[in-house]
């Protein structure tokens, strides 16, 4: 068996070797090399949990590699390890964050695509001034809507995205929104209880 490369490397390979992608990935990948020729460094402006970051593209420590996934940047470059990497493949939902309010799998997007975007991670759910938990977080505690807790940040962010868009979802809408989140301990029932409490109390409105 050839050990599978990390998504970081895999995305780089597919973008460079595949080459046919017309998406942001290949465009962004070309930009740094052009920038390098011009001897000026390309920068990414990114807001994470309300805090603006200006990150240089490059291969040195603290810089954004052209193949770095957003999950990798959040965890390894910015030290926000609340976002989990479960499969690095876009299949388990553990790395879910909000991008401009919408849920995205941060292991499937490249940081170089994120210029000008606003990201919210699980660390950004609390009130930054008072430290008060988001009603959603409190409901998860009140209903013990987790066991091992590894999938919890992803589930919280998928839920947050749903409630931002639709403060009174039906149970089926909740299930749909969470259908990409892998939880092996089976906390599904308590998560639904927590969600029911939050939406009934209007805590997210």
């Amino acid at each position, binding site marked *: *068996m*050839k*050990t*599978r*490369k*990390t998504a*970081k*490397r895999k995305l780089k390979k597919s973008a460079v070797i595949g080459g046919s992608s017309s998406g942001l990935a290949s465009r962004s990948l070309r930009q740094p090399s052009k920038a390098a020729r011009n001897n000026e460094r390309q920068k990414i402006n990114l807001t994470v949990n309300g805090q603006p970051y200006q990150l240089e593209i490059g291969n040195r420590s603290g810089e954004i590699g052209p193949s770095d996934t957003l999950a990798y940047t959040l*965890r390894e470059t910015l030290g*926000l*390890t*609340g*976002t*989990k*990497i*479960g*499969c*690095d*493949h876009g*299949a*388990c939902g553990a790395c879910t964050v909000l991008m401009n309010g919408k849920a995205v799998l941060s292991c499937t997007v490249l940081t170089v695509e994120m210029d000008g975007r606003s990201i919210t*991670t*699980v*660390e950004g*759910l*609390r009130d930054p001034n008072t430290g008060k*938990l988001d009603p959603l*977080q409190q409901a*998860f*505690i*009140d*209903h*013990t809507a*987790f*066991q*091992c*807790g*590894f*999938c*919890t*940040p992803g589930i*919280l962010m998928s839920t947050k995205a749903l409630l931002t868009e639709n403060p009174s979802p039906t149970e089926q809408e*909740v*299930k*749909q929104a*969470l*259908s*990409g*989140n*892998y*939880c*092996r*301990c*089976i*906390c*599904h*029932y*308590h*998560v*639904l209880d927590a969600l029911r409490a939050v939406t009934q109390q209007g805590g997210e409105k």
Partner: protein
Amino acid sequence: MTRPYRFIGKATPRKDGVEIVTGEAKFIADIKLPKMLFGKVLRSPLPHANIRHIDAGKAKRLDGVRAVLTYQDVPEWKGGMPAHVRILDRKVRFVGDAVALVAAETEEIALEALDGIEVDYEPLPAVYDVEEAMKPDAPQLYTQFPGNVLPNRCPGFGPKSLEEIAMGNVEQGFEEADIIAEGTYAYENIPNPLTAEPPGAIAAWERPDHLTVWSSAQNPYWEGVLLYLRTERKVHIRYIGTQCGGSYGTRLMSWQLILYAALLAQAANRPVKVCYSREEHFAAYGLRLGSRIHGKVGMKKEGTITAISGEWLINTGFYSQITQGQLAVGCGEVQLAVRCPNWDLKPKIVCTNRTASGIVRGFGGQELKSAFLPLLTEAMGKADLDPLEFFKKNYVKPGDGYYWRDGNWWVCRGVDYTKAMEKGAEAFRWKEKWKGWLKPTRVNGAKRIGVGVGVHGNADVGEDVSEAYVRLDPNAMATIYSCLAEHGTGQRSSLCKMIAEILQLPLENVSMTPPDSLLSPYEIGPFGSRGTYAIGSAIIAAAEEAKKKLLERCAPMLKANPEDLETEEGWVYQREKPELRIPWRTGMGIDRTLLGYGRFEPDFTVPNFMMLFVEVEVDVETGKTELVDVVSATDVGQIIDPLNLKNQLHGSLGSAGVDSALFEESILDKKSGRFLNINLVDYKWRTFLELPAFQTVTLETPFPTHRFGAIGVGEVSTAAGPPAILMATSNAIGRRVYEYPMTPEKILRVLGKTKRGVM
């Protein structure tokens, strides 16, 4: 009934709740040490081969590579039971076996270095089937185990560890039977428990013989002991547990990756982290055991079993970690479910060329029952017995005996679970839904609805030794010294509740040491549902001893005998005159702490119990089977925390439990030895959209063996499921189905709707 307890039985927030919902909880991948390197493993592309030549020169020359190790560079450390697996070997035994290790400054460099290692393999024929593997001309995985058969003995369970079930006279028993059922039944889809967090570890050497390990096992102390044994008693281990992103028992399979990190750290003289990718977690970690039984059951018409005989073939994959232990516990557990005076069940453990099977919730019992109960239901069907009535009659009751894992005969002094079965049946409406064998409950067009029931229990709730200290500080704080990591059961919080109850302190005044083998006394860890009874009793004893010391110190000041004193909210007072009281700080002084010690000794006399009722809906046009309704029934003596308990009961659907009968399987390509579905898209798992209705029925009949009358049940929640699903599916479609999992293809085959014929 009014509850006498302040905390016990009430839902209280998990102590680590805030950390979990804010992302502050530190899992292994979240931890970074200064100067830490990243380790990666080169894995075999072949299922069985000798390494003729290996050249790591190119990898070593790569910038940023700090260590490369092959079989030539590692010590003779071995794991497995009996010890038979080297850290790296000249021979590889499955696709994914470790061939070389690399440590580098970044993960990316380490992966690149793997490409620079050239290996010349001499391919060998491979074998995957237990019976093929035992044939005289079969490929041999280990020279010391001819026929690929491992010894059955589990040394950790004592000199007489249970190696088979042999009692009475089976020939006579079969003569007394009215009904005989006989045949081959199997549970061999080797599902993957697949915790949400992939496994990982960090190793750092403090001194040449002192190693510190960070990893995610739920039982750091015992893991440290095992690593000490595997390093030939030459390396002293400090094991620090991280937040554990799911275990279901499997985290005890991490010794290899921990020693990869340790050896790389030694070679590079820097800390090294090894975290498995999800693919490695799938292909090179731990599966459930493969289980096949050639068996025979004799039964009286009214459901008395007269004899059971047969051969139980266990496929352990390329090595046994503690399969012998699973064999022993499986053999014990099957006796709890079926009362029979005449047994001759002979297990065999066989090695094959795939990744190893190992410890998983259900620990041998799920695997044996999932193969054995379908045979038993054949007999029940022939006798036209209601399976619920059969289990009520046959499940172990106080006064009944069984051979447990240590080979000794134990007599049950637990409770009678008949009432729990009846309450569960009531909630499920079993009487209404059960229409007889191979009869659907309802037919709705192409949809056939059927019901099934399964049972499981374990006397390991009192297995092994636990030790604990409880320290009282003058500021009315209590600290539990117990070495267990939080792996999802909420056990760390539940244990704090027990101590808060005993000391009558606010819950926030009671805490537990971080899981670190340096801080705490011996603790084998939370598994086998032993957290409540075994670990609980040790810490309760420690708290009682500390409390006794406190009351003794305060007695002269309160001019009373210690036995006339009580403590509450950090005050000690006379029971008869509560106004005569002093705070702990007065009794103890500011310069004193009081320490209590507790120890739990093994006790196999109190089996726990779990019954699962399931209702499935089978579409006979498409073959799709859906689980629509589940009722779990148990008796826990005393609920410690209702929400943690419910979480554990719901867990029957996860960790390769109930769903291993419906859609979970590891699909092995027998040409290449590779698994074909080792990612989270192709490996099927239950999503939020497919939740069945799930009701938990929990009785509380106090167990006299526990301070609060409680018994644990988390570990047993899965095992009754798979045979219950087979039963329900058979009843729904009116034909017996035997093969796990019940994919649409198999259903259609059984219904004669595919060209591949009827099984």
